[in-house]
């Protein structure tokens, strides 16, 4: 579904990605892990058309995404849950969700939109309770659910998530990751960027490890979980124990 070959990204003179390749097949849940500043967000922004200058190749459904603006990429079925959620605090929860379906309203797909809205409110019942409330008044976990819900409102084929676990308690992380597994079962393809390597690799089929703009490891999620390097760098013994206790 997604093929990235030899992707290079620049911020002025700084090179944030130096020749990254990655692929995601239809129906897969792939995790991309890496430390701060590795270039994970840069990679996702390049896919979504939010980054102005990149070289290399990004193919989605066999077609290049080069030169496309974000709305055109959303229209192709790619939807992102951005880092830090980026919900619209002054707007109501409902309006935030509806904004996710902006392009579909334009295509007059009102029936499809309201069906999806119901589905998403069922998926996250707390959003239904708070639907009239300003999004800024939600808790961090609720905001993350809203961000996921908003992305789903675009009815994507391919969902990208940038550190959805950031700043959330393990229980909430669990809830969101369970939802992702549920979504994958409905046929959605997912690429998740995480620093919480344990949680991400546990639900993923495959994983990639990004380090300072280079892909250093790739493989089955279970292999990566067992990998010594990954364990040393991203899991840490205490960390993995912590999660085992709760799994």
């Amino acid at each position, binding site marked *: 579904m997604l093929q990235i070959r030899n992707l290079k990204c620049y911020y002025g003179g700084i090179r944030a990605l130096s020749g990254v390749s990655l692929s995601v097949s239809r129906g897969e849940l792939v995790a991309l892990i890496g430390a*701060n*500043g590795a270039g994970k967000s840069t990679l996702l922004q390049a896919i*979504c058309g*939010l980054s102005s200058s990149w070289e290399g190749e990004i193919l989605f459904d066999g077609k290049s995404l080069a030169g496309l*603006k*974000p*709305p055109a990429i*959303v*229209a192709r079925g790619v939807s*992102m849950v*951005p880092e830090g959620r*980026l*919900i*619209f*605090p*002054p*707007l109501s929860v409902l*309006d935030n969700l*509806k*904004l*996710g379906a*902006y*392009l579909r*309203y*334009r295509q007059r797909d009102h029936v499809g939109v309201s069906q999806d809205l119901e589905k998403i409110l069922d998926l996250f019942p707390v959003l239904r309770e708070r639907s009239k409330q300003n999004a800024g008044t939600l808790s961090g976990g609720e905001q993350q659910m809203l961000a996921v819900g*908003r*992305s789903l409102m*675009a009815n994507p084929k391919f969902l990208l998530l940038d550190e959805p676990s950031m700043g959330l308690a393990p229980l909430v992380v669990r809830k969101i990751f369970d939802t992702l597994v549920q979504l994958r079962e409905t046929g959605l393809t997912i690429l998740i960027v995480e620093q919480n390597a344990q949680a991400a690799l546990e639900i993923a089929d495959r994983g990639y490890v990004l380090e300072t703009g280079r892909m250093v490891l790739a493989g089955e999620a279970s292999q990566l979980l067992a990998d010594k390097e990954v364990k040393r760098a991203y899991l840490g013994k205490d960390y993995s124990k912590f999660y085992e206790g709760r799994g």
Partner: protein
Amino acid sequence: MVFTLFAAVIICTGAALEGDYYHEQLLTFIGIFTLLAVGLNMLMGYAGQISLGHAAFYGIGAYTTGALTVHLQWSPWASLPCALIMAGVIAYIVGKPTLKLSGYYLGMGTLGFGMIMHVLFREWTTITGGPNGLVGIPSLSLWGLDLSTGRNYLYVVWGCVLLTFFICDRLVNSRVGRALRAIHYSEQAASAVGVDTAKAKLQVFVFSAVVAALAGFLYAHMVMFISPGTFTFLASVKLVAMVVIGGMASIWGALLGATFLTLLPEHLSVFADYEMIIYGGILMGVMIFLPQGLTRGVLDIYEKFRAKRKGTVED
């Protein structure tokens, strides 16, 4: 529902004022300024953009219909669409390059544009009548009904206000309104969910210009004489002040602001002397609390903070 009530209030007020020429005319002026303010409010309050040359679009509406009806003897009803289209096209040309960027660019662009238009109104004597103004603009009539009498014209103007309110209300609560409010908060986030931010901003700017041109049309056929002095920078500032006083991002607020700033000079004669200072003071407040000014400032702090955080984590 609210609109029916509003319409009823207008009709009753009109009936009550029968024969009171002064108040009929005052109320008609309030209607014209409300139109201007509500259009500008869509741009400022919802999309977070500012136009400092809105009087120019008001003038384009007035002068287009004035020139066509006086020089070419067109019927006002034929010149109306021309006036609206003219303002829309010019707004498109002014807005296209400036709205691609985020920030104050539209404000600066329209500031310059407003001044150029004012010079044009004053100097292009063959068309506009120059500093002496354009005389002999016909009044409106429809199917033999004279619309120029005090009460009829009041109904015409407030009918237009009601229609514009209705359109704005629909717009605000639709996909477009949500997108504008999203842009107001963060262009980047809005674009990430698929909003074409440049296009949405341009659309609302063109809309506000067309509404201003409608106000200009109504003004020209009401007073039947127009001169450049009506469409100055000060007039633009006054419109911005109306929106700010009424409260941004509120359709009914525009009505309030327009009413207040139209009545104030009527009842407070000293006001005329300090007009510029008062509008200047209000505008200063806008500049300080201007949405994108604030957003920009907060973004800068956020970026600095982010850079610092990254730096310390990587150390």
